[in-house]
């Protein structure tokens, strides 16, 4: 599992360009920063008020006034800036974040996203996710392809939406997909899987790119 997540994070990292402003969700997305090529420097935005977030704070050296959106003590890089929440979400909604990487419960062929609520279960709230996926220039979903065998990539989400028509790209351990007006296009397939396997693991029709490439670890 750890290897699969590393694979996903590695692949997502290749989507980020030098100088990009990026907001990484909690969990798997946070790991993406560890897999950037060394000539690519991105600027991390944290919605609780940082532009230019750095790595986690070393134990014993935490500044308790500086946390990330997951309430972990972090550092900031040179050239960072702190701001209030209205400013932060102005940056987010205003299209000034080049990419956001988030997990998902479900994504559908229209690019609709469900990642915040399972009716009947404990509700934790949407936090900044609804704003992020609406505002970021590129929305990359990084997740395991299925949830204990159940489809997560669907014709239509069955869970309540986080937002509609927002997902640009899906990266899983099986492959890399782009959401287009025609539906979900498989651009890369990981060599561990066959086309039939990824089709079976997907709840909507996968359009196979004529230019299909192998997904690299």
């Amino acid at each position: 599992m750890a290897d699969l997540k590393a694979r996903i994070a590695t692949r997502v990292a290749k989507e980020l360009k030098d100088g990009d402003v990026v907001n990484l969700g909690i969990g798997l997305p946070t790991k993406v920063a560890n897999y950037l090529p060394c000539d690519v420097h991105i600027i991390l935005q944290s919605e609780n008020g940082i532009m230019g977030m750095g790595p986690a704070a070393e134990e014993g050296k935490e500044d308790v006034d500086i946390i990330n959106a997951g309430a972990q003590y972090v550092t900031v890089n040179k050239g960072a800036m702190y701001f209030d929440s209205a400013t932060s979400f102005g940056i987010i909604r205003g299209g000034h974040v080049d990419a956001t990487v988030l997990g998902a419960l479900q994504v559908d062929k229209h690019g609709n996203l469900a990642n915040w609520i399972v009716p009947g279960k404990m509700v934790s709230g949407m936090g900044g996710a609804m704003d992020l996926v609406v505002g970021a220039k590129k929305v990359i979903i990084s997740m395991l392809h299925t949830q204990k065998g159940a489809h997560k990539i669907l014709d239509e989400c069955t869970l309540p939406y986080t937002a509609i028509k927002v997902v640009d790209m899906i990266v899983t351990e099986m492959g890399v997909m782009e959401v287009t007006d025609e539906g979900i296009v498989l651009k890369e397939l990981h060599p561990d899987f066959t086309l039939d396997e990824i089709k079976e693991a997907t709840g909507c029709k996968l359009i196979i790119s004529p230019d299909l490439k192998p997904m690299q670890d």
Partner: protein
Amino acid sequence: MKNKIMTAKEAIAGIKDGSSIMVGGFMACGTPEILIDALVEKGAKDLTIICNDAGVPGRGVGKLITNGQVKTLIASHVGLNPEVAQRMNTEDPGEKLECILVPQGTLAERIRACGAGLGGFLTPTGVGTIVAEGKQVINVGGKDYLLEEPLKADFALLRGSVTDKFGNTEYNGTTRTFNPMMATAADYVIVGTCEIVEIGDIDPNNVVTSGIFVDAIVGGEKPWQI
């Protein structure tokens, strides 16, 4: 000039059962613990709390929830405080917590809109989702937006890093979060601050919250200890 410096107990004296209170901070980073503690001691009930989140048990708004003082919580995220779910699902009406979830950017902007005298704003966030229920959808330039309305409160409890005796305040690091907007959107604004300085000690270029918004200043706030 009116003296604004007082004890936490004095500062929160006006808070009553049923008051609405904005509380600054994000996961309790930027929340004035000394003011929360005084409010726990006072025990005012049926409060409406407006805060980014529910804090964590034992910190920030979490203390008010544990103490059963909160009737309604307006927040964007409550996942780090499991007590919220328990109290939302309880059958005991005296313990029952109503939780109204608002997207974080919309929450911040609604508070700002109130302070800035706007009747509302159009946001793309939430269009097509359950957040849109009951709200006007307005199309501008071919794109749909939700009309979101301002949010105000009776009180705001803010956490400053440096505050002068007039109330001008600076916030360190990510403690800034919701504090500056909340300063503008409540009838009575209390700053719990780490350091009180003389008027003129803060560079006018670096003041974040103007003292005109501040009714009471309480010293002795400390960065929360790990």
